[in-house]
């Protein structure tokens, strides 16, 4: 009996210990209930759309089209000169002595890579997509993310050359080392080829999102920049369904956003107000750009004499792109001058009387600029595509007349209506293309890349401190 009792007690004890010991490791696997976990995301269309939207957000930020995309390109390329107001980091851009501490350099690097990070979040989690998500929809969203990742990497590779290539969500102890320019271009091309094949065409796609046309155009641009003119020619031949708009100015106003000429834009909306525009984390209502205030509100920069001199006599694009003394403003937007309510007079056009930027400005329809401009940044438009087609044609050993045909389409736009160019010889045709790009695409972040293709410009920005301080493998 006593033995039984002891056995019973021991049994109870073992039972009690068992209760404790049975708490297996799964009890320690607690997920944070306060936040959504990446492990449980991607279950609905809306969630996948939300993850896609986040990839776009970094295009709007100050490191990109909110501020530094235009300063870096336009200043380094010599399209701008500094008025006395310009801050030191932007003066470095004009002087081409950008250092590692340069604020714009740091923001541009960080926000393009953050855009890449948001893209990677969608792309690397494809295996987590709920099976109920339609394959078309999933591929289309992935196409958007890969289009944008290609665009962000194109920003990186053209401004920095060799750089870390991050295509997944894994963190790398101490940071990744640099990848070669070729590897980065190959990754961009793979992304854009996927995007071009999987994205919806303009008309089918929701306005504001990336389209297959945009992906082909960007792929052409990337291939041209990489030096593959034949590849560019093929890619650009797939860009269909676009046309030049009659009025050149309609490419730079709020009223005519996403018009027939537009392939891809960065969306802004003035009504969202100043809100979070200075934020640099992609979040909040950072839906406005500082472009208008910086260029012709504060007149921090003005178009350089070299750029102004590039315009032929009678090129109406001069007046469309620049304000000069006696130009009308604050009236209706027309191509006729001196008939508006106000005109620029001495002192009203910044710290000197030299012409100022009109492109992407709001002064035509209101009294003053603010830090919140809602004019979408046109990243690629059809005039650019035509000029790229001209360049791809001639660089791939094609026909001079076909190439000049593209250029002359741009010159024949009704509001421009310049006579056709008729020159012979590869170099002369290339010169004509370069000229046409300078005047047509002035202030549209094209010139620095053009200089690299046409004039052997090899200047790059140094990888900034924000990377160097944490990345021990550079």
């Amino acid at each position, binding site marked *: 009996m006593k033995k039984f009792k002891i056995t019973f007690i021991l049994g109870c004890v073992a039972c009690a210990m068992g209760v404790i010991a049975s708490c297996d490791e799964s009890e*320690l696997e607690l997920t*944070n209930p306060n936040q*959504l976990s*990446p492990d449980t995301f991607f279950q609905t269309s809306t969630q996948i759309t*939300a993850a896609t939207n986040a990839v776009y957000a970094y295009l709007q930020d100050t490191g990109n089209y909110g501020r530094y995309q235009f300063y870096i390109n336009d200043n380094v390329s010599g399209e701008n000169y500094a008025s006395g107001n310009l801050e030191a980091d932007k003066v470095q851009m004009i002087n081409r002595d950008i250092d590692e501490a340069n604020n714009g350099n740091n923001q541009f690097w960080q926000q393009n890579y*953050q855009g890449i990070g948001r893209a990677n979040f969608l792309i690397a989690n494809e295996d987590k997509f709920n099976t109920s998500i339609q394959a078309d929809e999933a591929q289309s969203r992935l196409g958007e993310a890969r289009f944008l990742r290609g665009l962000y990497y194109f920003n990186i590779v053209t401004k920095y050359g060799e750089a870390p290539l*991050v295509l997944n969500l894994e963190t790398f102890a101490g940071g990744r080392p640099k990848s070669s320019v070729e590897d980065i271009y190959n990754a961009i091309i793979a992304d854009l080829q996927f995007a071009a094949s999987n994205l919806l065409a303009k008309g089918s796609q929701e*306005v504001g999102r990336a389209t297959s046309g945009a992906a082909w155009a960007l792929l052409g641009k990337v291939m041209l920049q990489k030096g593959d003119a034949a590849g560019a020619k093929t890619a650009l031949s797939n860009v269909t369904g676009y046309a030049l708009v009659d009025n050149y100015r309609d490419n730079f106003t709020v009223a005519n956003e996403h018009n027939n000429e537009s392939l891809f834009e960065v969306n802004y909306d003035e009504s969202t107000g100043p809100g979070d525009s200075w934020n640099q984390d992609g*979040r909040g209502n950072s839906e406005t750009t500082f472009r208008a205030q910086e260029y012709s509100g504060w007149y921090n920069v003005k178009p350089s004499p070299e750029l102004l001199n590039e315009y032929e006599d009678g090129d109406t694009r001069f007046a469309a792109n620049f304000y000069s003394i006696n130009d009308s403003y604050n009236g209706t937007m027309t191509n006729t001058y001196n008939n508006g309510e106000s005109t620029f007079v001495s002192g009203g056009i910044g710290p000197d009387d030299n012409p100022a930027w009109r492109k992407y400005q709001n002064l035509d329809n209101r009294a003053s600029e603010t830090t919140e401009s809602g004019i979408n940044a046109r990243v690629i438009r059809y005039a650019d595509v035509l000029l790229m087609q001209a360049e791809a044609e001639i660089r791939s050993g094609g026909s001079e007349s076909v190439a000049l045909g593209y250029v002359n389409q741009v010159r024949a736009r009704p509001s421009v209506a310049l006579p056709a160019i008729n020159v012979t010889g590869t170099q002369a045709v290339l010169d004509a293309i370069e000229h046409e790009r300078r005047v047509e695409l002035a202030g549209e972040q094209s010139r620095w890349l053009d200089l690299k293709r046409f004039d052997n410009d090899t200047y790059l920005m140094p990888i900034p401190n924000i990377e160097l301080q944490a990345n021990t493998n550079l």
Partner: protein
Amino acid sequence: MIKLKLAIVTLVMIFTQIGFSQTNTVSGIVSDESGMPIPGVSVILAESQKGTSTDFDGKYTIENLNSTDQLLFSYIGMTSQTITVGGQATINVTLVESLEALDEIVVVGYGVTTRRKVTGAISTVEADVIMRTPVVSVDQALQGNAAGVTVTNAGSPGTNPQVQIRGLKTFGNSQPLFVVDGIITGGINEINPNDIASMDVLKDASTAAIYGSRASNGVVMITTKKGKPGKTKVTVDTYISSQAKPETLDLLNSDQFAQFTSETFGQPNRYTVDPASTQLNTDWQDQVFRSAIMESVNVGASGGSEDAIFNISAGYLDQEGLIVSTGFQRSTLRANSEFKLGNRFKIGQTLSVADSDKQNEQEAGDRTLVEHMIKSLPYTPVYDSANLGGYGGPNTTLDNGSDAENAVRIQQLQTNETEELKILGSIYASYDIVEGLNFRLQYGFDRSTTANNIFRPSFNEGVNNRPAAYVQQGTNTFSSDNISGAFTYSKTFNEAHNLDVLFVAEEFKSTARNTDAQNSNPITDAIPLVQGTAQVNNTLYEYALLSYIGRINYEYMGKYLLAASLRYDGSSRFGSNNRWGTFPAVSAGWIISEESFLKESNSVSNLKLRASWGVTGNDGSNDYVYSSGLVNGFNYTGLSYNDGWSNYGASNPDLKWEQSTQTNIGLDLGFFNNALSISLEYYNINSEDIIVPIPNVASDGLTEGFTQRNGATATTDGFEASIGYNHNKGGNFSWGASMNLGTSKNRVTDLGDLDFIESSTFEGENLQRITLDESLYYFYGYQTDGLFQIGDDTSTQPNAGPGDIRFVDQNNDGTIDGDDNVKIGDPLPNFTYGLNLTANYKQFDALIFFTGVSGNDIYNTTLYDLEGMTRLFNSGTAVLDRWTPENTGATVPRFTADHSDNVNRSDRFVEDGAYTKLRNVTVGYSLSDQALSSIAKGSFTKLRVYLSGQNLITITNYSGYDPEIGGSTVSPNQLSGAAGIGIDRGNYPQPKSIILGLQLGF
């Protein structure tokens, strides 16, 4: 315990003489000092081992004794007494509590042992020491009473002190683990100090490692009072305390302010528009500070039988704060009991309920109340019935932008109260399976509900106003459950080998839910509640810990001690790759005084050498730190659905606990029957894998700038000494002195790729830094070198002129810039100490108790407010003696409209923080047994009155209110833990108080 008795018997056999004469019978009662009979006292005829023990009423009878026989009365924890029988038939004995530490019961993790067997470093603070100085919270009682334990009190009523055991070892969580009656608990502010029987501080790794991943900051074991078999004892303990208004800083009065501003900022418009109003002279310190009362009543009853013991108590405390409308009220109830069912089975429970209400000191606009008080203009009235809300303050048009808020209004018009209800309890069952083998099952729980109610009615005092009432209600519910099963096995082999084995399996889980609601009410100030549309935030945090624990203690011949333990912990706070950790410890002791060559010594009564090594962890980071969730707000305009969700930070599945490896060497010395006892310790702690915020690599594309990673190492070492002397040669007078001190020195030995970590932002600058080879959280800034005088070369500081502060050009590059910032102070004391002097003369008792710290600095931002002259604020009178071309000998720099350089973070604001406080001085009087028996039919067993003074004298060079800076309000920036330590942001001073107390026993 049995062994102990045997040892005593043996000793007695050796030392007592043998003799026979006539035989008789002796009986009597053995009681303690308070007159309570003690059951179970061993009464042994010295050389014969013949003996008995006292019964339930403390009575004994022994027959057949000779008059020369000697009776030895012994009881654990009491000083044994030997009495020669002589011709007496009745021998009543009063045993006094043992002053020898040797046999003291020491509470360790998952068990108890005796001081003799301890091989690690444990400081014990007994109830009588805790009760000696009335304290509000338990941990305050550790100050100055436990070597190596640094306690920094906060003056604000109901605010817990900061406790550090053996200094600071990490940048992260530095809070010790608190274990109450075997139950790990989140906080101890709700525990009534009157209920404490003892506190044992496990300082070294060998004693703390049994708590594994939570033990690296040391463990405080709190044991609450249990009953003793015998007559029911009732105690009443009450005191009333008068807390004096603090000494004031010298601020400008209205006339001085007028003089100062006319020479500097230009006199405010008020002097021309409304000159009459400038005649008002408000002493803001006098309005904000007050003298205050504190009252406490505690009633307890304890007792029981052989089979059931109990202890119940109730307490109430009401403390007014020195700052108006601050205070703390706490009601506590406790019931502990234990029951024996037969010889083998025991069940018991502990339960405490505490309900408290705290009226907080309030901040406003990132400034502390004291800062507002200093900056307030002397000619603005406290009250102004013309204003909405009824309070005065700087006027928008009259006072030129001065914007200090009315500190009295902040406290009186606004409410910020914290209500807490806490229930802490346990139930346990213990069964002796076979001789020596015991199983104990324990379930403990901790439940608390904390409500923070903030109500700010509308007001308009001029510059500062609130158009609509603001209400915020936060509710936090915390619950933890702890279940453990423990086997213990204890056996002595061949009378020489003693073995104790422990095995425990344990599970701990906690859940914290927080709901915070806030809104504005533009309609009325009458409803201090959140109603209708509100901004509501709800959070939930869970934590789970699974543990397996083993320990072996081996003792040979009562003089060689060996112990080893191992804990295997799994924690939910760490990543899947590092969820489990192993925490080993070993230790050894040699009781040299038990060796034959010392055993006979008359002078050396104890000599013991101890050494230990062990590994402990610190998982006191936040929950889910290893994971990273998704965030929204990546909006992209122009789309039909335009919210964006994405990843944010980096998850870190490799995150693991900080790990401390500690070595301890200790020496215990006792002389003259341990009248003089000395304990010395040396320790060395190496803390690895300290969790630091490592900047994310930008190209990884994460939005959050930092990821918590294990990335730093620090070492801490120090000495501790405790010396005690008790002079008790019988007679009317006895006295004792005890002193303890601890040193601690830490150094960062690895910071990975980080050059530094900054923390503690004040006025846009980070005051503290962590860098390689330096101590933690040192103050960082410019070193000053007096003031520039007329004609001095100011080329290093182009903005400076005569009367401005000269900063030292550390790198001699001819320019003062960021590179010239250096270490300008160290907030951590080199050593902390306590000194107790006690004396008894007849029915009088007296205590003098000093505590202090040395070698630390304080960054005094109050000085910034007093002498900074940054804006049109009131200032200290020192600004009247500022540098001017006529007063070139001044130490306060000149006034400049551009003040920025003179108030840069610099050693100008760093002061010596060393202090010695006369923490307590007490005189008490207890009625003698005779007197007690003559009143109320002898129903009283104790009646003591005492008069006590707390914090009466503070010896310090520090210029602020109080050099004891408990709790800092600076923004910790990237770090948590002890960041902000030693920065005085207008710290709530501790009161000087006079206490009158009464202790009764029935």
